[in-house]
């Protein structure tokens, strides 16, 4: 019995510590709102008052002036792509930020003649520290008029733009796409002024495509004019829209999945029916020994 009791106490301790970790320990996963480290989104979320939606439905429901930020590191289902297309056609604004993920799915669903190359954009000359952090200074006139002079990217890719869309930013002439992954330019690899940001009108809404989601992270949002660029792209005509990031397609660490599950459970427990059920269950469990003892006495 002593062993069983010890095991129960140990299990209880493990559960309590786990729960405390889930609730309070900050995430270290990429693009997580609670992540205060270099690869999190805490600074962007606070500055832009961005919401994190665990599902696409939650992201696109709500106010009409919603700006949806999609970082598709995992594929969307056909149904979800259809909902995204409907959202944009109905007047919503979409910001697709992708480098090596599944952004091309969204572009195809919106019938745009554009695609992410999906290969690293490297610039050995106009760059910060090393060629994986290229600096972009070739910006559209409306960006320069807004005081945006340069962007600093971090493990970006480039866009192939087929139709007549609005080009917002291009890389320098020393940049290239490292198709074969040898981190050196080879004959045949695209080189020069490659598109890294563009915008298109779709139905009543608009889509802005940026070939690097890393400009959102804590360590990058303050570099160059990244924050001003994001503000320019997200906020049009001095309005303050509702900004939502769809986190359903972001990779999550076990801690983040547990935290999401806890939050969902917490929301469910907040409903009155669940509370009544919980109260009833707790009362029943508490009084069960008393009930059994009373019955035992009555039998005696």
């Amino acid at each position, binding site marked *: 019995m002593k062993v069983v009791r010890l095991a129960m106490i140990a299990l209880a301790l493990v559960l309590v510590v786990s729960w405390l970790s889930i609730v309070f320990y900050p995430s270290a996963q*990429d693009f997580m709102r609670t992540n205060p480290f*270099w*690869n999190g989104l805490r600074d962007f979320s606070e500055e832009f008052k961005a919401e994190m939606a665990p599902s696409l439905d939650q992201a696109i*429901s709500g*106010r*009409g*002036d919603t700006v949806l930020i999609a970082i598709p*590191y995992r594929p969307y289902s056909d149904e979800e792509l259809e909902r995204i297309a409907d959202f944009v*056609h*109905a*007047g*919503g604004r979409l910001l697709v930020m992708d*480098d*090596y993920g599944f952004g091309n799915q969204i572009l195809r669903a919106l019938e745009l003649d554009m695609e992410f190359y999906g290969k*690293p954009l490297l610039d*050995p*000359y*106009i*760059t*910060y*520290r*090393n*060629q*994986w*952090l290229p*600096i972009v*200074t070739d910006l559209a006139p*409306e960006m320069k*008029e807004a005081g945006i002079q*340069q962007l*600093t990217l*971090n*493990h970006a890719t480039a866009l192939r733009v087929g139709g007549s869309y*609005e080009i917002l930013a291009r890389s*320098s002439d*020393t940049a290239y796409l490292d198709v074969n992954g040898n981190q050196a330019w080879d004959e045949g690899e695209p080189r020069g002024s490659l598109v890294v940001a563009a*915008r298109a*009108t779709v139905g*009543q*809404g*608009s889509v802005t495509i940026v070939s690097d*989601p*890393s400009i959102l*992270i804590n*360590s*990058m949002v303050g*570099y160059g004019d990244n924050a001003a660029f994001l503000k320019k792209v997200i906020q*049009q*005509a001095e309005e303050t829209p509702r900004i939502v990031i769809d986190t359903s397609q972001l990779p999550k660490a076990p801690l983040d999945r547990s935290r999401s599950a806890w939050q969902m459970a917490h929301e469910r427990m907040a409903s009155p*029916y669940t509370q*009544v059920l919980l109260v*009833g269950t707790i*009362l029943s469990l508490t*009084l069960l020994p*008393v*009930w059994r003892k*009373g019955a035992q*006495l*009555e039998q*005696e």
Partner: protein
Amino acid sequence: MKRRLCLSIAAVAVALLTSASHAAAIEPHQDPETAPWVFDGVSLLSKYSEVIDYILAGNVAGVESLQRQTDQANVPPDLRETVNRFLSSGRSLAQLIQEMESDTGRARELLEQFQHEEARASVSAAQEKLYWSYDVLNVLEREAQRTGHWWGADSAEKEDTLTSAYQAVLDRLEQLRHLLDLLGEMLAGLSGQVESLTAVHSTSVSLWVEPSAAFVGETVEFGGHLSAGDKPLAHRQVTILLGGFPISKETADSKGIYHGHMTIPYRYVPEITTRAIYYPQEEDVGLYLGSASTEITISVLYYITKLDLQVPDYTFPGRKLTLNGQFDYGNNPITQSRTLQVNWDEGLVATETVPDIFSLEIGVPPESRLGKHQVAVYVSPNGRYNPAEASSEVDVVKLTPVMDLSAPSVVLLPLAQDIHGHVYSSLGVLEDASVKVTLGDWETTSRTRSDGTFHSRLSTGLNLSLLAIQELRVNVTPKEPWHKATSLTRKVIMVNPINVTGLLLVLAVSVVFLAGRWSRKAASSITPATPRPSPPLVQKESHQLPPEPLKLGEQGRPESTLVALYRTVLKLVQGLTAMILGPSYTLREYAQACAPRLGLLAGYFQDLTMMVERLLYSQYSLSQRDIKYGRQLADKIEEASKLRPGMEFLPTAQLQGEGRGEAKSIELASVVSSTSWWRQSATWLWLLLVVTIAYYACVLLFLLPLVSALTS
């Protein structure tokens, strides 16, 4: 066991290794603060080559753009100064080469016109710039070598991309030196040509213009004299330049005098220069030098046009934008009309002829993005009236429509709901707009009519809810590009009467079941206990006396006390057992008959009965100890009787003040039992039941009507 453990460890290790091999995807980013510094010598040296290419082409702007680009370049800190010096020297050299080429070209032109003094000046200037160019080239070579040395490109044993890039820079520098050498040779040749002209006769030409100020399009008269020394040069041609361009050739007469007329061009500049040039032709070549008159400035007159343009601060895509404007000519006469060209973001959208005060409408493209746009108006020149232009920014915004909604505040499932609405804005109603109504998992779509109204019928169904507050959302997507999509939400109460009825039935059944169970428990709680065997009665000798009614002894005596106690207890027992002591019973028989119903009290009652029988049917004398014992027995029976249910046979007076409901312990055969009300499970079940019924009753009777009253 050990073998199994080893196999498990091996399997885990294999799984880890294989899973690690799948993590070959590109990293999404790196920490910029801890990212390694990696400099690329090949790209830097390639930029050096690019600079030299621009220098060779005399392209100063190209070098300047590379200079600006290098501000953001990833250059080693040790090399930053070297790179900056290389680029600034490159810019200087490009400028010098450009100027030298201009000077040599001008010198050639002047030599062709036999203007040897001017040609000499140009050649001298070019030669001076050439000397500077060699100095700057030395600086370029030094900085290039320093850069190559830093990268180790000058001492590398085998050829790679770095040494190739460095060699390309050195080759280009060699070409640059060769270019300067060529320029030097050319300048030497030109200088020789200039010197060879000094032996030829000089000439002079004069020019006058009348009037010295004229309107554009007007004609002015000019004239002058051509001579060689003191002698007039007759029948020679004199070229007249206006604004640097030849406009006419006049022939001098026998006295060397020439004159003519020129028209002031429609170039709306404050002044224009003119001069006359003579250069020898045919037989005069080699005999006379060319000459030019002094430059004469003619004041150009025209009417200044100013345009005052008013553009609204904002407009809507797909709508008309009204531009109001007024021409200001100052004190000059007002012209009847002018031609305007209107540009929207550098794209021509309208060309109109307008009076001096005008109002012009242009269409804003429906696909215009939201935000600032540039509207520019250009006015073409008209005779003496110069051109003008004005521009302004206009903000393109979308209008948020207003929606009036009529929807129920309470929804009964699974009935369909009618939702009516009207959508409009200051620009008019929204016609044929898409309307989507959503309530939970149900939705329906419709379109607005020509008057902006809509009617949607939302079909619902059954679900597991009982009573819930849901959000009814109406999304309107307009057809007009100047309207924004809009939405309206409203809280509605969804009532599922079928589930509510089902729940009430379940509760009712529970109540009935519990009540039945409780009553069975109450009945079974009065269980006959095993009667204690009564001690044998004290028998009178030889005969059995019939039972005699109790006699009350004298008061105060022990016998009367015991009898009084027995009477009291008898009443209690009769109340408890519902059995009356009839004449057919002896006291002992009555005690035995009551025993099953008295349970554990039976023993006490039998003891007391035996004491009374002893008193009545024997000569036994009671002691105070007996009385005390009898009182204890009576007390115990009395106490126990207060806690037993089924007190209906007891007189009320006896129950008052007896502390009914207080928890008391009774020692019964050494078993302690606590039966207080708050510890009974039935109490809590009743409480839960009452709370649940009260909750739903409050909701249905109070909350629903209140919400309906508030929302209606």
